[in-house]
Structure formats: structure tokens, C-alpha cells
């Protein structure tokens, strides 16, 4: 099914908690392509409303809340936001066999279908999507707590799961659409390896293929240095700190109430990055003044 979906326009690959997707797609129409280990899946979204959850790993196929639970069982997932035109979206709905009238509820209030044995091969399809014509079924309780390997046992367990009591981990809505666009644009610049938005507690958004924790450790150390020296200098507000090592550059900079960490190659045009960071800070100052 994934391969049949329209490509859409990629906004960029990111790493974030699954709940981030739901809190940051209010104006988004398209597909969120998700990769977890060797499996891949997607969430079809129309203006913040998830319409279809799907994940496939080998011969195991999860749909609806089984797929959602699997996504939620990972603290961080890697995904690509791909915008759809109205035509592409209609085509995606048809491919996913979604009714034209979409229920107002999100996928969390979905109906759950029993295991539907597939006629061809041994694939198992577990749950239905809102709006998809499927037989009715019984709800069961289940709460994912930690990342789970996707096994056939898990698929069977999920058929016993109740999703009426599925709690959502509240995630603060910290980034708006324009922010994601800005971060995506910076990531696309030549020489940018990764870019992260982080706060004092956690990584909020990561674009790029890096291990986030070691990078954040370095970024926080740099930030601590900047915080130590700033009160002793009468040089205006802190714009950025760049650490250059033979492998490349690590840049930390304030970004709204959060911070940016940018990992670049050695060959990057620092002047370009510097201009961007200064512009970002000027925008921030103007917003504060307004």
C-alpha cells in the first residue's frame, strides 16, 4: 500500500516523539512516512486529523490503532512529512479505501477489528481505520510502554487490546509550522549534517541522521559555557557559539524559548549560517517588541 501512495512534496526527515506529529500538523494535508528499524509505515493526515495508520515489517502488517500503538511504543520515531495536493490526497484516500466522509474523531477513538487472516500468504492485518469499510469488532485494553520489537505475538496481543482507555502522553506544542519550515530549510543547506531544536529537558525536533543524545550533551555543554560568559560581557545578546573540530562544526544558538544545535561539515559556509542565525534572532527580537 505504501508504494502506491502519491509521493507528495517532502518537507524533510525528522526525529521526534510520535505525539509531535499530531500536535504539529494542524494545517498539514499529506502523508507522514515513518521508518522504524527495517519496517515502514505511514499516517495519512488531513489538517491534524489522522485518517489512516499503517505499518509493515516483513510479512506483518499493522493498521489502525495497532499501528498507532506500535508508533507510540517508541519514544522517538523517524519520519518524513510529505505534503499532498488535493488531487494527491484524494488519490491517497482511494488507495487506503477511506470513505469520503471522514469521522470527526481521530484514530484514537477508532474501532478495532479482530485479526483478519489474509488469503494470500501469512500476512496479518489487525485493525481498521476510521472511515474504512471493515467488519465491527470488540475493544480491549492495552498500553504500550516501551519500544517493542514487531513480532507476530505482538500482533496477536494487539487484537486483545482495548483502545478506549488508550492514554496520550501530553507533549507541549512547542513548534509551529513556520518553525518546521525554517528548520527544514536550514537542514537543506549544503554542509548541514543535522539540526536539532532542544530545550533544557529533551530534544524537540531532529532533522538529520545522527545520534541525538551525544550531540545534545555537547550542545548543552556549549550552552552552559555561553550562559557562564554572557553576564560578564557587555556585547549584546548571545547569537551563537560555534565549536570547530577537524570533523566539522557544532553550532548552538537560541531559538525562541528553545535552542538550536547544528552539526555541519568542515566545508560549510559559516558566513551563511551566521547570517541565518542573526536573522532568526532579529525576528525573535521583533516579535518580543511587538
Amino acid at each position, binding site marked *: 500500500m505504501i508504494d502506491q501512495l502519491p509521493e507528495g512534496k517532502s518537507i524533510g526527515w525528522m526525529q521526534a516523539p510520535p505525539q509531535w506529529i499530531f500536535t504539529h500538523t494542524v494545517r498539514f494535508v499529506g502523508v507522514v512516512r515513518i521508518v522504524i528499524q527495517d519496517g515502514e509505515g505511514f499516517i495519512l493526515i488531513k489538517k491534524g486529523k489522522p485518517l489512516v495508520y499503517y505499518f509493515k515489517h516483513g510479512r506483518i502488517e499493522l493498521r489502525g490503532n495497532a499501528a498507532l500503538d506500535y508508533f507510540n511504543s517508541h519514544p522517538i520515531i523517524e519520519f518524513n512529512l510529505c505534503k499532498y495536493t488535493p488531487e494527491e490526497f484524494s488519490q491517497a484516500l482511494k488507495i487506503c479505501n477511506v470513505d469520503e466522509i471522514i469521522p470527526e474523531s481521530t484514530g484514537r477513538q477508532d474501532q478495532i477489528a479482530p485479526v483478519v487472516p489474509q488469503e494470500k500468504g501469512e500476512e496479518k492485518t489487525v485493525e481498521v481505520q476510521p472511515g474504512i469499510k471493515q467488519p465491527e469488532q470488540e475493544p480491549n485494553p492495552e498500553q504500550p510502554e516501551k519500544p517493542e520489537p514487531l513480532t507476530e505475538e505482538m500482533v496477536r496481543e494487539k487484537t486483545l487490546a482495548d483502545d478506549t482507555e488508550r492514554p496520550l502522553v501530553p507533549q507541549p506544542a512547542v513548534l509551529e509550522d513556520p518553525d518546521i519550515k525554517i528548520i527544514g530549510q536550514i537542514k537543506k543547506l549544503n554542509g548541514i549534517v543535522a539540526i536539532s531544536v532542544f530545550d533544557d529537558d529533551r530534544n524537540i525536533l531532529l532533522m538529520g541522521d545522527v545520534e541525538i543524545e551525544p550531540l545534545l550533551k555537547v550542545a548543552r*555543554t556549549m550552552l552552559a559555557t555561553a550562559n*557562564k560568559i554572557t553576564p*560578564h560581557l557587555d556585547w549584546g545578546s548571545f547569537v551563537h557559539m560555534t565549536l570547530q573540530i577537524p570533523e566539522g562544526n557544532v553550532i548552538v544558538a537560541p531559538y525562541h524559548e528553545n535552542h538550536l544545535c547544528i552539526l555541519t561539515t568542515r566545508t560549510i559556509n559559516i*558566513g551563511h549560517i551566521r547570517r541565518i542565525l542573526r536573522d532568526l534572532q532579529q525576528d525573535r527580537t521583533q516579535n518580543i517588541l511587538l
Partner: protein
Amino acid sequence: MLKQILNKFLILNDVQAAIVIQENGEIIQSMKSGIMIKEELQKVMATIMLDSKKTAAQFGNASLSMVFVEFSDHFLILGPVMEEFYLVVIAKNTANIGQITYEMKKNQDAIVSLL
């Protein structure tokens, strides 16, 4: 002689100070224009040197090539010259950073020979 080399930085547009400094904050030589190098600034430079060296070491013991700290009015570039000696350039944010880093690389050997 070291002063002559440091003066090459000072003649660049909007550069306010060029300093050869030790990790402990002791200034070996400096050339400045329109800026006072007070004890507080020395402590700031020492903090940047020591913290950045430690931070770079988190990258699989990588050596520190350069540190660039920018504020809305001024920036500071710090590069290791040899062992615990560093070259620090302080400039207004209108200065040409490319020119400064070029001069830092170009004059590194000459500075080392004088330390």
C-alpha cells in the same frame, strides 16, 4: 615582533583586539583599539578556552580547531596556537570573519615561532 603580527589583525576593519593568551587567562601579548581588556574579560576567555577544549574532547578526543562566540554587537574568535597558548580576536559584528580566520591561519606558524 609578536606585536607586529597582532597588529596585522588590528588593521582589519572593525577588529578591536588581537591577543595571545594562555589557558589560565594570562595575557602574553595583546594589541587593542577601543576596548579595555579587564580581568573579567580575561576570565571569560579562560572559560571559553578550558570549556571548549573539554567539549571538543567529547567528540572522540577531537582537537579544538577554533571557537567562535557571537553576540549582537561583538564576536570573539579563539584558535589554539600551540599547547596551552591561544590567539583571540575580538571584533565588532560588522567585521569580516573570513578575513580574520584567514589571517589567523596564515600567521599561526609565525606566532608559534615567537612563543
